[in-house]
């Protein structure tokens, strides 16, 4: 049954994604892309569990640590670039 619940969650999220994203105006499409890029680094969570459960085996330690580093890079870089762009959007007089 777990699997079917996950599918349910997937279906709802896809729908939600389409409804939300289709409302973002072209004005913000570049920040939108980099925001989506940042959150796609959510696999960091999986990497954390992998790296945190490691103790001895060299090869898997390397795999897991690299996974943490790369996904963190994705998340941190993505969020800060988005922030950098968004803070430039100003209305007259702001």
């Amino acid at each position, binding site marked *: 049954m777990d*699997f079917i619940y*996950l599918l349910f969650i*997937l279906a709802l*999220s896809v729908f*939600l*994604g*389409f409804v*939300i*994203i289709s409302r*973002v*105006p*072209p*004005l*913000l*499409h*570049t*920040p939108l*892309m*980099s*925001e*989506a*890029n*940042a*959150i*796609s*680094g*959510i696999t960091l*969570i*999986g*990497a*954390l*569990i*992998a790296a*945190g*459960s*490691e*103790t001895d085996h060299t*090869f*898997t330690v390397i*795999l897991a640590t690299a*996974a*943490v*580093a*790369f996904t*963190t*890079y*994705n998340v*941190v*870089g*993505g969020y*800060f*670039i*988005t922030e*950098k*762009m*968004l803070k*430039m959007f*100003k*209305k*007259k007089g702001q």
Partner: protein
Amino acid sequence: MDIAIFINFIYIISCVLFAFGLKMLGSPVTARKGNILSMSGMLLAVVVTLLSREVISFQWVALGVVMGGAAGLFTATRAKMTQMPETIALLHGFGGLGSMLVDWHAYHVHPTNSLIVSIPIYLSIFIGGVTFTGSCIAWGKLSERLPGKSIKFPGMQFVNIAVLGALLVLGFIFLSDPLHHYPIFLAIVVLSLIMGVLLVIPIGGADMPVVISVLNSYAGLVACTTGFVIHNTVLIVVGALVGANGIILSIIMCKAMNRSLANVLFGGFAPTVKAKAAGEKKEAKSMSVEDAFLVLEAAKSVVIVPGYGLAVAQAQHAVRELSELLEKNGAEVRFAIHPVAGRMPGHMNVLLAEANISYDQLYEMDVINPTMDTVDVAIVIGANDVVNPAARSDKSSPIYGMPIIDVDKAKTVFVLKRSMATGFAGVENELFYNENTAMIFGDAKQTLQSLVSEFKASAAA
């Protein structure tokens, strides 16, 4: 309460924060708050994950986070606004690689014969690999470290089909008994990485934005499949949101270019540069900066149409100066932004925002077109295809049907570019030969700066 339940409860909150964050990107007023909400969602998810029972040691976690975080901050602070496309491509690539490694780790540590787990593993490796190398190539092309042109070699199609076929066949073998097929697994890893290169090298540099957004949806897919591998709901929700984002942006861009996604990804867009009826070719009028200044001084309503060339010339600050002077002179100045102007969707808006141009001066094509006949001067800066009237009238043109900004309906049109050369689509532009069009040749930044000095000189006099 069981710690696993608590963690999942917090994950729900994280997901809601991510969704809210994206929703708030729907308006420039709330967008920044949205980004911060999204960051908090991420922070929450990371922190509670570290509380979970599986996490017993922290040294490797710390090492990875410090290295990745420092590199991320470095990239983000160094990236210029004109470099957004390649920077996003780079981040994408490493995200894809990271996800792939998570799945590899999962397979290495807990190999299983259950199809419910091993199918997602296979998909994650495949898509993650393609995302990684594909993004790297896109990064290279966009940052001009690789040649921007479409790269093809003889027999390329056969190689592509062979690699894809091998991936599918190996996939079936792998899935038949995942526990005992580690070598095949490694072959899949390698072939996926090769596949990513093969898919992106034949695509031209100007089509990279579409590639990035397709890769964006791949990154979402990988997050989803990884979610199924490690049974993690947040990954599934976020993956779905990101996937939807990539698909929507790709579709929007393709529509604005009047091409199909398949044509962009596999077609290689062969421009048919047939200057039809070259015999009766009219002369384009060229105008000096001084004369242009006189026309602009008298204008009450000005529309500025920036294009790819403005980004190339890095003329965004010069254009802001000119627009301010025009406004001081009593003219109403509006910017008309075409959806595919610039190097990626919405890129023109970011560049103009960087130059401190208020976002309520930026108008979408559909808003500005109906008012175009009341405009005194339309200044086209480094744009070409997006103002080509052939898209409206000439059925034989390859860009026929692409929505354009109707500058030809304005009373006067100035076109700022360096030559009579064609734009990305390689099509002649009738606009340049119109009665009411004047070309102002030269680098966009220099021309704009000259116009600015004319205005300043006249104010001083």
